[in-house]
């Protein structure tokens, strides 16, 4: 019996010593200075912030900061209850030399709702384990599309420019942004624009022009990559026809018509009563007038709002004309040509006026008097000879 107790005690001691031995293998006093210098030096998630459903990678870089001791690495694993691991674990052994680093990359799927998550990375040494938890976020905030500038109204067949702004309210950069513009009966230029990358918190303007043939919604589609995952944001802009309240409105005034005996000269001012700039303003005369040198067409140039310029056009016209249409043309910033016509009365002086200003009485009377004298003289002569 005594012997039995002694054997039992010895077994218990041996078991206890085994337990203590196992515990001391993890935290062995002799090895802890070595394994304590092996740590995760950096963690990289790509993309940095996931959308729900995004695939990506998590890369843990392990560093051995010991200066003269190698360590054996085993069984690198990524584990989380929410993120799905798409790739396998690192089951093989690797020796990590002094001052060396080794990355462990895992493909993961963020099949989780928005929120903050803390997946863990673990690594086994021959006599200890390494655990590392890092924050990774899932944020479904999309990019923002904002209309910065567009015309008040569109005109059928006239090209107009629209400026939008793409902003990135996310906490990470996005890549490969492409803007597509489409609509029924709309010609867009460019219809597809590569915008490029956009940093977190940054914004970028994008211009494009549209020429509508009918009223329709204009669909803007912005595609971009979060990591390698494509995403889309859309916006509709209504295209309605009407009068642009800001459009340039050149008006002729102070119009004076003169002639120098050979051609009519029409001078005046052109005032831009609109809000937009009128580009390449030109003035010319229309039929029945026939433009003549030196000012067949007068180029006034660009007129900003409230600005004015002078013009002069020269022309001839047929004798029956009492007024002549003067055409004023300009282009908007998109190159569309707008025309307006104003009739200018031809004054009662000048070429036509000379014709209609009355008979040249003096030479006519003089001619008649001469004829009368001649006839009278002969009448008297004949009567005298008769007698």
């Amino acid at each position, binding site marked *: 019996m005594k012997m039995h107790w002694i054997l039992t005690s010895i077994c218990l001691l041996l078991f206890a010593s085994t337990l203590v031995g196992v515990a001391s293998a993890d935290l062995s006093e002799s090895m802890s200075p070595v394994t304590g210098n092996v740590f995760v030096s950096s963690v990289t998630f790509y993309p940095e912030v996931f959308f729900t459903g995004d695939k990506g990678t998590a890369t843990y870089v392990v560093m051995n900061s010991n200066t003269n001791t190698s360590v054996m690495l085993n069984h690198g694993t990524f584990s989380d209850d929410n993120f799905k691991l798409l790739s396998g674990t690192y089951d093989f052994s690797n020796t990590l030399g002094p001052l060396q680093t080794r990355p462990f990359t895992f493909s993961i799927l963020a099949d989780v709702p928005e929120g903050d998550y803390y997946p863990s990375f673990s690594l086994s040494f021959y006599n200890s384990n390494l655990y590392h938890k890092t924050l990774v976020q899932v944020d479904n905030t999309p990019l923002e599309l904002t209309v910065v500038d567009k015309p008040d109204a569109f005109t059928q067949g006239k090209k107009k420019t629209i400026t939008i702004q793409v902003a990135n309210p996310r906490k990470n950069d996005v890549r490969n942004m492409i803007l597509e513009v489409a609509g029924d009966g709309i010609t867009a230029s460019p219809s597809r624009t590569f915008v490029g990358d956009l940093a977190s918190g940054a914004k970028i303007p994008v211009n494009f022009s549209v020429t509508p043939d009918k009223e329709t919604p204009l669909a803007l589609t912005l595609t971009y990559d979060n990591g390698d995952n494509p995403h889309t944001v859309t916006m509709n802009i209504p295209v309605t026809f009407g009068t642009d309240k800001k459009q340039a409105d050149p008006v002729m005034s102070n119009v004076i018509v003169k002639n*120098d*005996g*050979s*051609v009519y000269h029409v001078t005046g001012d052109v005032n831009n009563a609109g809000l937009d700039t009128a580009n390449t303003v030109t003035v010319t005369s229309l*039929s029945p007038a*026939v*433009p*003549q*040198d030196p000012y*067949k067409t007068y180029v006034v140039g660009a007129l900003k709002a409230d600005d004015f310029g002078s013009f002069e056009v020269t022309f*001839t*016209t*047929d*004798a029956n004309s009492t007024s002549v249409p003067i055409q004023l043309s300009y282009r908007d910033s998109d190159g569309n040509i707008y025309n307006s016509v104003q009739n200018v009365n031809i004054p009662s002086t000048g*070429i036509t006026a*000379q*014709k209609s200003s009355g*008979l*040249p009485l*003096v*030479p*006519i009377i*003089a*001619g*008649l008097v*001469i*004829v009368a004298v*001649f*006839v009278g003289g*002969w009448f008297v*002569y*004949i009567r005298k*000879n*008769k007698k």
Partner: protein
Amino acid sequence: MKESLINLLINTDTFFRNAMEEEENFTIPVLIVLAVGIISAAYGYLIGRLTSQMMSAVTPGIESIILISTILGAIIGTFVFWLIWAGVLYGFSAVFKGEGTFKRTLEFTGYGYLPQIIGSFITLAAAFEYLPEVKVPQISTAGIPTDQLGQVIQNAVSTMMHDPAMVELTQITVLITIVFLLWSANIWIFGIRHARKLSPRDGALCVGIPVIAYILYMIYNLGVS
């Protein structure tokens, strides 16, 4: 022709009475008409130069054509008009039962051009004075559709003809022409009277009717142009 041309101007009746005693001789009449034609050609040259200046942009090289046709047209036209005018007088005199050859009528009609040499000179002097002041419109074909070119040329010619200097020249020319045409008519009355053996009244009517009709036509044109 023994008679002096001075007599033709101041003693016309005697001049033609004496001329009737001689054979028809066209030397002097032809020279008189030629002189009128040459002076008219000079006048035509001045006007043609303005026209060619205006048309040069439309048809390059047309200047010489215009000038040659103007000069030849003036000379030949004067002779042709002499023939026609003699024919008219001959025709009118036939109504009054005139007797005499057309040859004689043609000869005496040619003498009647003598005052017009003076009138043409004065007209030419006026043209030298006024034509440099006429502003000639330049026709440029650039940018003008072909179907509008005719209208452009017409407008340009009309513009030039209504230039103040040109209008004044036209009026002066008409008045001078009237005065010297009546002087010529005076000679033609005596001429046709002797050539066709008419009374003074018939001679005056023969010449007076067409001449005054022509003058009234010129005055009418002056008013409507």
